[in-house]
């Protein structure tokens, strides 16, 4: 089997264009609250979704738009939902962290780690009501320290559920470097529960596709649950307007805001152990430096990598189509919002 790279790229471009539109609307103040984008996760979403059939289920986290777009949820209704319109996917009541599509058996949640047990339940129902169907859970590497998620690993193995756990490892949980609060290795952790575990470069859609094919295929055949650890970049920070990224994007303003209180803390009484305090300051500096290097030096965009597999002409055609689709949905959604 070889991947249909054109189709994979088409899905990735749709996801990216859609989220670029979300960022634009958010900046215009038309979307409220925390807006977490899945920009950088498109190859993981597209590579896994390519193996899903009708009646397969998805449990999603706070970056749920790429999988929903990839699964064919109507873009206009998603946009209306994000803008809090009554004709939105959930009547404007859920918003971007709580998107539900009953038709597509897709549910998202803002509670970190909750997608895993939900997917186990979806898988349990599938086994009884829709044999041959599977459930997929998407979550981040930070979620892999959440108790209910680890309990779900065991549950899935104990009950031999047709579920695939997809961990999108972007190395960060908000401002925390996940490695600094995580023991051992997630792949071995999953294996020790008895899960069939795979590691893949989540910026290479063709590789995600191949890996997900194995994991989903096994689950579908009733041969047991799987775990995929897919590394990917966090290209837009934790959420839009991420204060850590703002340090790079508006350095003067941020330094003026953050600097003086830190300096006061450095010098506040009782004035013991100044060198130790300087060392503590270094912890903050190091986190920022790591983020900066990853974002501005090492970042690998999955779309660029996928595009490199296509001819220039094909790439452009696919992108134009995606842009057109998103623009049309946005125009209709904005007309509805403004017409209210």
């Amino acid at each position, binding site marked *: 089997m070889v991947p249909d790279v054109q189709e994979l790229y088409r899905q990735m471009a749709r996801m990216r264009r859609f989220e670029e539109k979300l960022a634009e609307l*958010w*900046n*215009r*103040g038309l979307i*409220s*609250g*925390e807006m977490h984008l899945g920009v950088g996760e498109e190859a993981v979403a597209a590579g896994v979704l390519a193996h899903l059939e009708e009646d397969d289920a998805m449990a999603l986290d706070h970056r749920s738009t790429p999988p929903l777009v990839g699964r064919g949820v109507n873009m206009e209704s998603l946009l209306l*939902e994000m803008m*809090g*319109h009554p004709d939105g996917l*959930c009547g*404007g*009541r*859920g*918003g971007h*962290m*709580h998107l539900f599509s009953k038709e597509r058996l897709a549910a998202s*949640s*803002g*509670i*970190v*780690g909750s997608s895993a047990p939900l997917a186990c339940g979806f898988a349990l129902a599938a086994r009884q009501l829709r044999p041959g169907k599977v459930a997929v859970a998407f979550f981040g590497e*930070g*979620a892999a*320290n*959440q*108790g*209910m998620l680890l309990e779900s690993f065991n549950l899935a193995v104990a009950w031999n559920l047709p579920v695939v756990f997809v961990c999108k490892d972007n190395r960060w*949980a*908000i*401002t*925390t470097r*996940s490695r*600094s*609060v*995580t023991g051992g290795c997630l792949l071995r952790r999953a294996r020790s529960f008895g899960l069939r575990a795979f590691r893949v470069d989540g910026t290479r859609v063709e590789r995600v596709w191949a890996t997900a094919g194995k994991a989903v295929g096994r689950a579908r055949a009733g041969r047991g649950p799987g775990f995929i650890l897919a590394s990917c970049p966090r290209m837009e920070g934790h*959420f*839009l*307007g*991420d*204060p*850590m990224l*703002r340090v790079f994007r508006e350095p003067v303003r941020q330094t003026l805001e*953050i600097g003086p*209180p*830190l300096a*006061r*803390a*450095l010098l*506040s*009484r*009782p004035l013991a152990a100044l060198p*130790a*305090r300087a*060392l*503590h*300051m270094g*912890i*903050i500096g190091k*986190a920022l430096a790591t983020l900066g290097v990853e974002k501005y030096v090492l970042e690998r965009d999955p779309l660029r990598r996928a595009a490199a597999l296509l001819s220039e002409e094909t790439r452009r055609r696919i992108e134009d189509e995606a842009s057109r689709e998103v623009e049309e949905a946005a125009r209709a959604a904005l007309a509805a919002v403004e017409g209210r």
Partner: protein
Amino acid sequence: MPEMTFAQAIDYALGEAMAADERVITLGEDVAMLRRELLVRFGPSRVLQAPISEAAFLAAGVGAAMAGLRPVVEIMMVDFIAVALDALLNQATKVRAFSGGKWNVPLVVRAACGGGYGDAGQHEQCLWGLLSGMPGISVLVPSNPADAAGLMLSAIQCDEPVVFLEHKLLSDYWLDYLGRGGRETVSFDVPEAGARGEVPKPPAPVPIGKAKKAREGRDIAMFGLGVSLHRCLEAAQELEKDGISAEVVDLRSACPLDREMILSSASRTGRVLVVDEDYAGYGLSGEVAALLSEEGLKVDFARVCAEEVVPYARSLEDEVLPNRRRIREAALRLCGGSA
């Protein structure tokens, strides 16, 4: 007295407590950034970064408190406490009782709460009613910087489990992270008197369970806390134009309740309106009604609370959370008029 933001006041009190007592530590997700000034002062062994493992690190806080520390455990948003409820419900609040009074748990749980910025009801709940339902716990909800500092200090000094809730409309950094994101295209109804104000230096402890009269009035007593307190004050001004003199009491804690102050305001005005951003059923407002009834006080009673899951859309959210219009209408109904 120096002026501080609500958020600065809390961290100021926490910092003073940490400087005075090395048993005081703070831990939670992202504290290296959120409490970076404390990290610089006290280092990573007392400002501890936690993984996203609330059930474990909150329960570890219980153990640490039993064994001599005075931990301030941060649950980023009170909604997330759901995954860690055992630590409070079956551990922290049981130790004193089960040990025959011989062992106690000086634990502080600090969490952001409340809505008004369009994040929907998985991140915008108050939950102080749910939490107050556990015997042996205190749940503090300050409405201004001075009380925030004073109550944080008292919480740390308290020998029993205390939940300290920090409303996100009052805490500028939370509102910026979660609501504004650096944008100038969005706006929020922030009660200025709650978000910034004078704080005594050194911070003065505010006794737990003591309400404060925020406004004198004759016709009706309105009880609120957190942001709802400010909504009461705003509504009270409008009611003045309607010829109604409203008393406003800042409960300052959902638990324990200041029975004395509640009874005196209620009996003097004969009309009680509880304004509570938490859910209407099985919570603070019902508790106030029960208290009045137990004391045999016959008053006209009403409540303005969250009646359903907080919806995402800002316009819907504004109607679900207590607002000036709903408060005024309820007060007018109680006073026999109509809006």
